């Protein structure tokens, strides 16, 4: 492309992105002209929903961190077979579709689950404890404890060897190490981590939908969906969505202010011998921490796999419903992934020009953060806005596939941007001059220079976006119908109806699909970009 067209791809991407975001927000605002937040707060049920949203998110964050801190210490103290695999699995819980984890949790903690079967074998009465706050907390800990432990472990591993040696010479006991070495290292990461977990739990949808068990345990995110699909109350749905938008915006600002760059430890460095490894008390402590944390984390994962290798499953695997859902999931994911990458490439090829050639670093950064602005909008809010915007203009349900695809593509944008930002800039830095001097422009440049160098990160961004889309439940919950089923939605319904065998089959297919994409990422990327967060 000739240089004078540098602005075109970015302008196209950015205006489409902004249109897709401001349109729904505008629709929400128009829908609720007379709505004030005092009206919302006057309703005691909505006050309860707000309170519960904060309460469960706060509690989830606290518990996840309270478990993750000792878990990270234990992992930094001990080397054991399977440790690396475990840390890898901890990363998996981030990309695992939420509804899949919910399936595992129901299989373990439900009335007929493993825990109750064990209790019964021991002669106790089975009891139900899953639905409501307990279930929500179990699921949120399942997701966030490993995430937090992984990040805290990085902080611990960044403590320099010299500090450990000094501590050894001073004869530090375990609590001294915590006080003087570990806590200072973790403390810098904690605020941003806590606010990230809080935001994830505050906007969690699939978990609360499937495990909430009624109005007592409803969060704002689910209340928006219910206002739209249960009550057909457009002003209420719009008002709640705006409220959610405001909260998320605030959390993100907070998060931004709290973030500190964490130095990662150099890979492959020999681990220092911690002076507290050999005490009996820390051994006992480590064993009990591992037991507790793994008993929360491993059984649901195992349950998904075990349910998947059940031979009763084979006939169910042939069900047409399952394969139609798989096909829709794949179609939507492929479309969403490609659209997301397309937006990202367009945006970045203009923003890198602005940064490198026009030397407008601020303007380039602004363009890139505008691309990520979707972070303030949970999928339910975006979908509600789109729904209200398009209703009356078109048949929203017959356009379901396209709308889910659009929402998914936008939701994946920040991840695609983060994946492609540095590689795109690097290519320009290293090759712009050469290309200019050789007169390589336009398609030739894309084909000979950009594509070979960017193939890997593009594939990674595509796979990431597809994986997010494959696991989405928020958009499909609003736009789905009998004619548009995706795997997460099918699984959600089967779980609701307690069709555990059918659910197991769906979970298996969903797991294979997500895992396939996850492996694709690790394969394609391998080296230093493997960490995408």
């Amino acid at each position, binding site marked *: 492309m000739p240089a004078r067209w540098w602005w075109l791809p970015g302008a196209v991407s950015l205006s489409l992105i902004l249109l897709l975001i401001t349109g729904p927000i505008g629709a929400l605002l128009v829908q609720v002209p007379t709505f004030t937040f005092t009206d919302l707060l006057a309703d005691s049920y909505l006050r309860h929903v707000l309170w519960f949203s904060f309460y469960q998110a706060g509690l989830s964050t606290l518990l996840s961190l309270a478990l993750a801190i000792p878990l990270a210490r234990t992992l930094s103290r001990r080397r054991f077979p399977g440790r690396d695999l475990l840390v890898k699995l901890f990363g998996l819980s981030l990309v695992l579709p939420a509804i899949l984890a919910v399936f595992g949790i129901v299989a373990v903690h439900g009335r007929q689950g493993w825990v109750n079967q064990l209790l019964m074998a021991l002669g106790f009465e089975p009891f139900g404890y899953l*639905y409501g706050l307990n279930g929500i907390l179990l699921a949120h800990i399942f997701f966030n404890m490993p995430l937090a432990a992984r990040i805290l472990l990085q902080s611990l591993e960044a403590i320099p060897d010299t500090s450990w040696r000094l501590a050894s010479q001073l004869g530090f006991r375990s609590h001294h190490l915590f006080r003087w070495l570990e806590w200072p290292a973790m403390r810098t990461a904690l605020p941003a981590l806590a606010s990230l977990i809080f935001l994830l739990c505050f906007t969690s949808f699939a978990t609360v939908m499937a495990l909430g068990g009624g109005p007592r345990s409803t969060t704002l995110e689910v209340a928006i969906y219910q206002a739209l699909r249960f*009550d057909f109350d457009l002003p209420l749905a719009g008002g709640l969505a705006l409220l959610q938008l405001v909260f998320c915006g605030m959390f993100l600002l907070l998060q931004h202010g709290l973030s500190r760059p964490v130095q990662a430890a150099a890979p492959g460095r020999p681990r220092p011998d911690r002076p507290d490894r050999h005490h009996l008390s820390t051994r006992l402590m480590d064993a009990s921490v591992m037991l507790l944390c793994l008993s929360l984390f491993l059984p649901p994962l195992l349950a998904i796999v075990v349910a998947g290798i059940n031979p009763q499953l084979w006939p169910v695997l042939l069900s047409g419903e399952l394969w139609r859902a798989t096909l829709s999931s794949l179609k939507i994911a492929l479309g969403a992934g490609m659209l997301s990458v397309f937006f990202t490439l367009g945006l970045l090829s203009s923003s890198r020009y602005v940064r490198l050639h026009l030397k407008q670093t601020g303007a380039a950064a602004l363009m890139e953060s505008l691309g990520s602005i979707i972070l303030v909008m949970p999928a339910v809010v975006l979908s509600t806005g789109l729904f209200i915007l398009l209703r009356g203009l078109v048949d929203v349900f017959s356009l379901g596939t396209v709308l889910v695809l659009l929402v998914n593509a936008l939701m994946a944008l920040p991840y695609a941007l983060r994946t492609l930002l540095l590689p795109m800039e690097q290519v320009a830095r290293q090759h712009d001059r050469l290309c200019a001097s050789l007169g390589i422009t336009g398609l030739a440049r894309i084909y000979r220079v950009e594509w070979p160098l960017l193939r890997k990160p593009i594939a990674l961004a595509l796979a990431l976006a597809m994986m997010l889309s494959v696991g989405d439940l928020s958009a499909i919950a609003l736009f789905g119908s009998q004619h548009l089923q995706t795997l997460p939605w099918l699984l959600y319904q089967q779980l609701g109806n307690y069709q555990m065998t059918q659910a197991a089959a769906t979970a298996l297919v969903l797991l294979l699909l997500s895992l396939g994409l996850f492996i694709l990422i690790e394969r394609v990327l391998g080296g230093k970009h493997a960490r995408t967060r």
Partner: protein
Amino acid sequence: MKKNLLALSLPLLISSQAMAAEPTLTVYTYGSFASDWGPGPAIKKSFEAECGCQLEFVALDDGVSILNRLRLEGGDTRADLVLGLDNNLLQAAKETGLLSEHKVELDGIRLPGGWNDSVFVPFDYGYFAFIYDADKLDTPPTSFAELLERDDLSLLYQDPRTSTPGLGLLLWVQQLYAERASDIWQNLAKRTVSVTKGWSEAYGMFLEGEADLVLSYTTSPAYHIEAEQKTQYRAAGFSEGHYLQVEVAAKVKTSQQPELADRFLQFMVGPGFQQHIATGNWMYPVIDTPLPASFDKLVQPASSLSFSAEEVAEHRQAWVRQWLNSVAR
């Protein structure tokens, strides 16, 4: 991968084209009606045999969802008929202005309290009741009052915002306790395992042993007797009486197949449809139809309770709000 996608989608394309030859009548209904174990498939078969058309059931969560979906879609709806609203929703459904009058002769209809409505045609009726498992529960509650005193009993019911049984319980409580309803809900909330979106979720959870009682119908035990030869599932008869539900269907104004829709409504009150009600939907048919022997063993309600459609329409939102506020506390 593309090749596989094609291979997978090809049969789908072909089959949907083969279907396009005949006119399709689209009926919005609730999940359990259209499911493989519900009356839907048999009814589809016998109607298609005589109409030269395709009957398509679109399954939604539960009765109230049908109305919500209709309102969401407004004039764009693909539905020709809605089937599965009930006596409590008549007024709200009429107020959407999306339904048109039927042409069915209602003379043969046998219903407690009779039937006379220009828009809705009834297709079955029943009484809401809590179902228990006699193998696990020796002394079921014999009245609503006793249910409220029995702290040991856990229960499952449906959300009145999506489900007609859920709405039925709401009205049942309202009828029995009126201004004390809020206290009753708080009392029940302590023992509620889950409030589900639809009937099938709650009933499925009950069968899995998640709770002692589940809100369903006095006729539900017949299913277990007929289909499973199990007699331990029984309805708890309450001395205060049981709330009546009449399930109805109506024609959508914007239907592209108005003649077919009329024909279906007429078919609905004939034996071809009604014979599948007792042993398919596990409710009472609305015309004289021989009932299976298991129906003799069912609890007969002490009295039949109901509000008029206008009363429900006037108070429904306030009562649902009150329920939400009470159970969330």
